[in-house]
């Protein structure tokens, strides 16, 4: 993870110029007078401890202090893991990755990036698109239960305490043979009369119908607006 953030910071520096990453005095660089010109990979690049300062020197927007604290904290922990034993060492991997990703790719979406990786799994090639929908939904379910409300709001833009519903789009993209019942969509705005729902997995907002579910044991009153009129609480179709 630490190496990952270092790579991304180096990428941010390379946006300005790759030559900024070259470390050491020129007389220590590979010689340019050999028969074959030296490759970039032969050069020593700047140390991790200098990356934040280098980034802030050449990029317009300096890295925010919480990110820098997190980065330095992780660097120290990485050294402890690499060179010693610390029985009390704790790394909150999920939250650190979400923090780093949001800071370094503010217009990005970690879940979409993650789906891109899942789509390359051999199982995804064999099973089709439903494999990645099922897996990312299970992951998000874990993450939403794990993180405190402020972090859920910060990283996913949803209220952790808000009632969650099935997403009709993800439902049809999922494989139900493996008990797909992850409720990850929320009404927008948060209101008893709200007629729109937002899903963080497919990152889409769409209309819903506010009618009671005909299933007597279900107290849901949010139905999909398509012909299927699926209850987004119990999953029953009500065409």
């Amino acid at each position, binding site marked *: *993870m630490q190496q990952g953030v270092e790579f991304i910071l180096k990428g941010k520096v390379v946006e300005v110029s790759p030559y900024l990453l070259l470390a050491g005095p020129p007389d220590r660089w590979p010689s340019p007078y050999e028969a074959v010109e030296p490759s970039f990979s032969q050069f020593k690049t700047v140390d991790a401890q200098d990356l934040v300062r280098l980034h802030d020197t050449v990029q317009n927007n300096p890295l925010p202090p919480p990110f820098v604290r997190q980065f330095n904290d992780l660097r120290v922990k990485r050294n402890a893991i690499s060179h010693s034993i610390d029985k009390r060492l704790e790394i909150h991997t999920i939250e650190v990755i979400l923090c780093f990703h949001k800071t370094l790719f503010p217009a990005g979406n970690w879940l979409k990036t993650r789906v891109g990786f899942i789509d390359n799994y051999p199982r995804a090639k064999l099973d089709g698109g439903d494999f990645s929908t099922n897996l990312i939904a299970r992951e998000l379910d874990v*993450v939403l239960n794990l993180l405190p409300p402020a972090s859920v709001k910060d990283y996913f833009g949803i209220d952790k305490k808000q009632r969650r519903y099935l997403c009709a789009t993800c439902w049809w993209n999922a494989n139900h043979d493996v008990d797909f019942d992850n409720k990850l969509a929320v009404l927008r705005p948060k209101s008893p009369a709200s007629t729109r729902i937002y899903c963080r997995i497919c990152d889409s907002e769409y209309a819903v119908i506010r009618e009671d579910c005909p299933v007597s044991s279900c107290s849901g009153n949010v139905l999909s607006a398509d012909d299927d009129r699926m209850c987004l609480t119990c999953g029953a179709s009500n065409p």
Partner: protein
Amino acid sequence: MIRDLPSPKDFFDVGLELFDFAWIQSRNFGQIYPTPNTSELIAQKFPTSIGPPLSAV
């Protein structure tokens, strides 16, 4: 002149792949990605050693 200059994307791709690797290693995903126990690891590495004898196949 230096050859094979990297692009920002080259660095971003590797960085994100390392994030992805760390992500699935998180113990919080233990239910989704259980850590294989020793016998499972052996089974993965030497599948025939725990399977039925070849004569029974």
